[in-house]
């Protein structure tokens, strides 16, 4: 893949000031996504994955760093250019209840981005476009005049997807789009998202805490811990050779739906998640890490490439590969 990435972040930072100190929600994240590809972002609550997604499409202002869209840093765009940019990047939310305006009907919700971005010149073409979108995401036309509260979670999520698709984006941030849904509905939505990617070549940033989902949908996976990227690798590679102790812990913590003895839960990691307020230098996982040494907490640990495209930020591998970032 020698082409330029569709979207790229360079040393992206987002800090929040809290009464207790500066919260490093996103701390120096660099990533790139190519057209039609999916980058999965995994991590536990409070690791900054949702913030990352929002900063990347400028729903939140960045504290530092750049977000390049086809090579151009759009964090510097002014109002009018940004409005054009809004058509290229969209977001799908986790909560199919909070993400839809309860006072608007399904067709009004889908029409909203069309109106705001002035995509359809007249009423008729707008109606046609709404019908097309509903058809694309698998919503029956008769639902056009219902209100979201009359529909179930899966259908609501389809409305959210249709709204995001309305402006024909090239990049969509999917913020835990299936974690609020039942398994059977979850599978339907995942299939839909993958079909859409195939037909429209959309790139996804797929944020989730569910490793089995991320494995299913992603080409590449980034593991985040307290605002930092601890490991990044192609999907298969990450599951086959998890390198960072946190990734290992995360993988072994998933309860596997199988009663075979080899799938029994083992090596439960101790300790609790803290929050990255005024973090100390070094590895933020060190306090819970079974392999931690004094070297871990002395200075920032850079990402190291241990296999092609497999990057890890851990002292265990620092000497082996070349340094990045």
């Amino acid at each position, binding site marked *: 893949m020698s082409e330029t990435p569709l979207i790229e972040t360079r040393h992206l930072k987002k800090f929040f000031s809290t009464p207790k100190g500066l919260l490093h929600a996103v701390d120096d994240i660099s990533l790139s996504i190519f057209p039609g590809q999916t980058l999965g972002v995994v991590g536990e609550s409070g690791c900054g994955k949702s913030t990352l997604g*929002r900063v990347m*499409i400028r*729903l939140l202002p960045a504290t530092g760093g750049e977000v390049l869209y086809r090579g151009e840093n759009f964090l510097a765009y002014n109002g009018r250019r*940004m*409005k054009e940019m*809004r*058509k290229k*990047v*969209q*977001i799908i*939310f*986790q*909560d199919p209840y*909070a*993400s*839809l*305006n*309860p*006072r608007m009907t399904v067709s009004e919700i889908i029409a*909203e*981005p069309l109106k*705001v*971005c002035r995509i359809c010149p007249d009423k008729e073409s707008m109606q046609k476009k709404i019908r097309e979108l509903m058809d694309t995401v698998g919503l029956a036309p008769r639902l056009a005049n*219902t*209100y979201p509260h*009359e*529909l*179930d979670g899966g*259908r609501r999520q389809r409305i*959210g997807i249709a*709204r*995001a698709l*309305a*402006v024909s984006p090239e990049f969509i941030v999917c913020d835990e789009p299936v974690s609020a849904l039942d398994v059977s509905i979850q599978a339907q939505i995942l299939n839909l998202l993958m079909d859409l990617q195939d037909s429209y070549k959309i790139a996804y940033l797929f944020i989730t805490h569910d490793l089995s989902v991320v494995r299913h949908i992603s080409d590449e996976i980034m593991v985040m811990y307290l605002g930092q990227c601890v490991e990044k690798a192609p999907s298969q590679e990450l599951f086959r050779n998890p390198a960072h102790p946190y990734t290992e812990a995360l993988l072994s913590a998933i309860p596997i739906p199988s009663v075979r003895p080899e799938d029994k839960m083992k090596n439960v990691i101790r300790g609790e998640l803290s929050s990255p307020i005024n973090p100390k230098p070094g590895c933020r996982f060190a306090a819970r890490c079974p392999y931690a040494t004094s070297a871990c907490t002395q200075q920032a640990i850079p990402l190291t490439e241990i296999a092609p495209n497999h990057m890890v930020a851990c002292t265990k591998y620092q000497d082996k590969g070349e340094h990045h970032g």
Partner: protein
Amino acid sequence: MEKKGRSQSGAIWFRFQKNKLALISLVILGAIVLAALFANVLIDPELVTTTNSSLRLQTPSAEHWFGTDLYGRDVLARIVYGARVSLTVSVTAVFGALIVGGLLGAVAAYFGGHVENIIMRIMDIFMAIPSLVMAIAVVAALGASTVNLVVALIVARAPQFARVVRSAILPIRDLEYVEAATACGTSHRRIILRHILPNVLGPIIVQTTLQMGHCIIQIAGLSFVGLGIQPPTPEWGSMLSEAREYMRRYSFLVVPPGLAIMITVFCFNRIGDGLRDALDPKLKN
């Protein structure tokens, strides 16, 4: 889920009509509003202002149901026409306060930070002054007239609305559908007007009805002390004030305006309460 449930407004009405007191209040208030609207059809407007010293201070009779006042004017006629004045002034004032206060509150809540601080601290200063004193101050400064009365009431009432609207918006502001609207480049104005305000209509409606009641009392109060509606325009508060001097001998004169104020305010409050319960989704069973 295909089965179409009751529409939202239908469900609200269903819960509202379960509250019998609120329902009765609505009927009574409806009657008062209709009487005020069609006052000139029901009662000759001449009766309201024509003085007739031969008829002064008559006790209630078949001809004058509520008796006549100091100048021989029919009290019933003045009460009905007084409803017109009270209701018009309070509706104008409350809606004025709603627009001013509501928008300030919405802007404060939506933008947050310094904007919110400045607006809300100013509102706090206004709230610290009792609203009657505030209204008296404004009327005293601008002079007593109906327009100034409305202005005074708006100034006194707006902070209440600002507070209610702000606190109703705060939890909605961060919801994902607002973010979704931002994500496709919707302007702030459109987000506030189309996505946020419609979802806080419930508390706003409740607050409006409750404020109506307060407002009527305040108009009456200001008129009572001579700063509100000026005679000879009939107004409940000023009628009460006039009747007060003769209360010992002609006590029947204070009853009609007093009851009119009481019943109207009571109705507004009951309706407000009923609406609050009906609009609160948490009470849904």
